[in-house]
């Protein structure tokens, strides 16, 4: 007991090194995959291509959109929900910001704010439908996925919207193109930075806020939460709102990276995001999980894709490998010392 008390945040009673390790199994998995990537990295001029800092940041950048989605998805899954609409909302937001910046000639701040508000609103609306009519999140957001996609296509007129930069009418402010750039000596891609900042905020939110306790409680035992005076409906609606907001943010990042608003973009991203969350050790039943795990889960998938790509592995074989690794990662999670069944 006393020993346990000395390690309040890492170990659980009954734990020890092994438990700690499994508690953060996705980090562990990430390390494993990372090591494998180093081992199998092709080398150029005697240097491991994988470990090249440019490449490492590419990995983070390539997962930044999925990562941002996955952070929001973590919250939703923690309350025992799911959000299938995030991919489509990403597409909608990318179209939105592109259209607003170019065709409507809005300034950067109003355009971004408006698009974020749309994402937030879309999420809140979904949350409202879920809580007020008691419809399952899977269904509401499945419908939301179609609706957001339809809206994106209607808004864009079907074709993608190119973003060109400049001062003239129909041109977006140069600042927006920063999303495609790198900072700190051209090393760190801005989207990667945004992802990490979002993740860090979420980690802090989930550690210190009362709101986070309510999130975990709802996922763990909704009835108990309600009886304890947790405003269950409100928390749920807000969580779906946050998820929509983050999806919109991801869409903005997407548009900024590609200089393009794609109405059909983001398809299947929801599944990647969910995979990252689950690999990260968050239970789909709600009530257990962490953003740290999610970030590790997203990076794990990113590293995996990267190393397979670097080795020029056939895309079909890539599908197989990634599928198997997802199962392994999830299986690893189950190896942790048996808890009460």
């Amino acid at each position: 007991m006393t020993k346990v008390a000395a390690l309040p945040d890492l170990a659980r009673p009954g734990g020890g090194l092994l438990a700690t390790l499994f508690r953060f199994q996705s980090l562990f998995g990430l390390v494993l995959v990372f090591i494998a990537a180093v081992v199998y990295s092709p080398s150029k001029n005697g240097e491991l291509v994988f470990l090249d800092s440019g490449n490492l940041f590419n990995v983070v950048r390539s997962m930044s959109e999925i990562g941002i989605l996955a952070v929001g998805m973590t919250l939703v899954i923690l309350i025992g929900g799911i959000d299938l609409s995030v991919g489509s909302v990403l597409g909608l937001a990318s179209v939105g910001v592109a259209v607003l910046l170019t065709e409507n000639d809005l300034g950067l701040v109003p355009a971004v704010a408006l698009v974020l508000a749309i994402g937030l609103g879309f999420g809140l609306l979904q949350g409202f439908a879920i809580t007020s009519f008691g419809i399952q999140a899977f269904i509401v957001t499945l419908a939301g996925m179609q609706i957001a996609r339809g809206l994106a296509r209607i808004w864009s007129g079907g074709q993608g919207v190119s973003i060109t930069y400049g001062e003239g009418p129909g041109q977006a402010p140069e600042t927006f193109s920063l999303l495609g750039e790198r900072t700190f000596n051209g090393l760190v891609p801005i989207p990667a930075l945004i992802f990490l900042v979002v993740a860090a905020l979420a980690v802090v939110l989930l550690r210190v806020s009362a709101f986070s306790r309510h999130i975990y409680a709802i996922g763990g035992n909704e009835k108990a939460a309600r009886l304890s005076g947790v405003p269950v409906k409100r928390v749920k609606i807000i969580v779906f709102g946050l998820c929509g907001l983050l999806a919109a943010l991801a869409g903005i990042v997407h548009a900024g990276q590609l200089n393009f608003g794609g109405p059909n973009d983001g398809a299947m991203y929801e599944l990647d995001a969910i995979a990252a969350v689950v690999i990260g050790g968050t239970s789909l039943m709600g009530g257990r999980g962490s953003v740290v795990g999610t970030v590790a889960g997203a990076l794990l998938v990113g590293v995996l894709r990267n190393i397979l790509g670097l080795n020029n592995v056939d895309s079909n074989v890539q599908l197989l490998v990634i599928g198997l690794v997802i199962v392994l990662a999830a299986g690893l999670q189950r190896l942790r010392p048996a808890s009460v069944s």
Partner: protein
Amino acid sequence: MDAEPRSPLVELAGVSKSYGGVHAVRDVDFTVCAGEVHALLGENGAGKSTLMKILSGEVGGHRGEIRIDGEPVRFARPADAQRAGVAMIHQELDLVPALPIAENVFLGREPRTRFGTIDRRRMVRETARLLDRIGVALDPRRPVEELRTGEQQLVTIAKALSLDARIIVMDEPTSALSAPEIDRLFAVIAELRRAGAGVVYISHRMDEIGRVADRATVLRNGEVVAEFDARAMTAQQASEAMVGRPVESMFRTGDGAGAGEELLRVEDLVVQSRRPGRRDPAGISLRVGRGEIVGVAGLLGAGRTELLETIYGVGGRWSGRILLRGEEIRPRGPRGALRLGIAFVPEDRRVAGLALEHSVLANTVLSIVDRIARAGVVPRRRERGAAQEMVDRLGVKLASLRDPAGSLSGGNQQKVVLGRGLLTEPALLLLDEPTRGVDVGAKAEIYRLLGEAASRGVGVLLASSEPAELIGVCHRVVVLRDGRSVRELDTANTTEAELLAFSMGEGAVEDLVAEGTS
């Protein structure tokens, strides 16, 4: 005790509530005064919980008036009631499994730091204080899911206390507790009463009522049928009011012929505990004969549940020998156990016993559907017939076999789980707290059924926290302490006090002996 009951704190006037065609509560008047413990009695399904859920804002859509301090109130949600000073300890332990004890206790009312973040340290400190007050040594940071039922019940009590409420409703707070914890709880209740709080106390353990309550109100079919001075009331009176007819002796009336040939023998069974800090026990040895009812006594965490689960093949790792009809077995899961003729009624019926949304029919016949099936097809008539017969035999109160199990009262739910076990026609019946939350009438009914089963040659191993039950029903009682069988007692010449003393430890026995001789 000190003051006379003072002014009414809570008044319920003409409160009614019905579910579909069922009148759960009908035109009930009920008051609680400051500094009073008011017991609420009644059979399973009498409407006790419903009435109290109305008071605590959990159930809406009722008729009638609620007044607190004379002011009419209407609570839309539990949080409203809490703000008005009403706290409720629920019959179903509504906790969040993955969260630590402290966070469960303060859920929805988390203390904040200056920065608006949650003040974990304070939460842990105050929880520790609360737990200490009710006399449990639990680390407030442990997740609730690691706790056993009884410990969880203590946590819900701590949670209710943390509200500093003026009106505390305790809906069967002791159903999973054993004597020392109950004593502790009663001390806390006495404290509360002294501090001027009003307590509503619901229990099916008649012996507790006289110890703790000032007044007792009896509900039957949702209506108030009697009110007693709790201290003057006899268990017989209360039972009759609840059931509405004279009740004969509670306990088994069978001849008590006792052991036939040996059915089960357990030798040096050591279950590897999943909890650290518990010393490795020397092991459990016991035997059960055909037609014998053997009790398993022990305090919270003594290992009763573990023992039964191990025999049923769903426990953890273990060593030792288990022999059934003289042959060594290594039970591997419920199917194997059932095939050997072992049936098990688990401790927590809501988590492990029932699919609450499913019909009573489906729940009752679940263990035998594949047995009665012909070529995989279940004969409907046979299925219904079996369920109906069992429901009739156990006197389960319901409108139709199609009722969802969750709509039954707690005691009736328990009978359904028991019925499922009995339908498998077991040779050995393992019962873990089978009368938890069951009313006196139904208890008597269950005891009679156990007696009947025993007289047909079934061996029964009955784990219970109620000394009266163990003494009254069993032929022999095995006392467990820390995972060891420390004593075997013949119930014919053992008192409840002795049983308790052995459960608590050697020191306690000596005290008792000393008391007895002095």
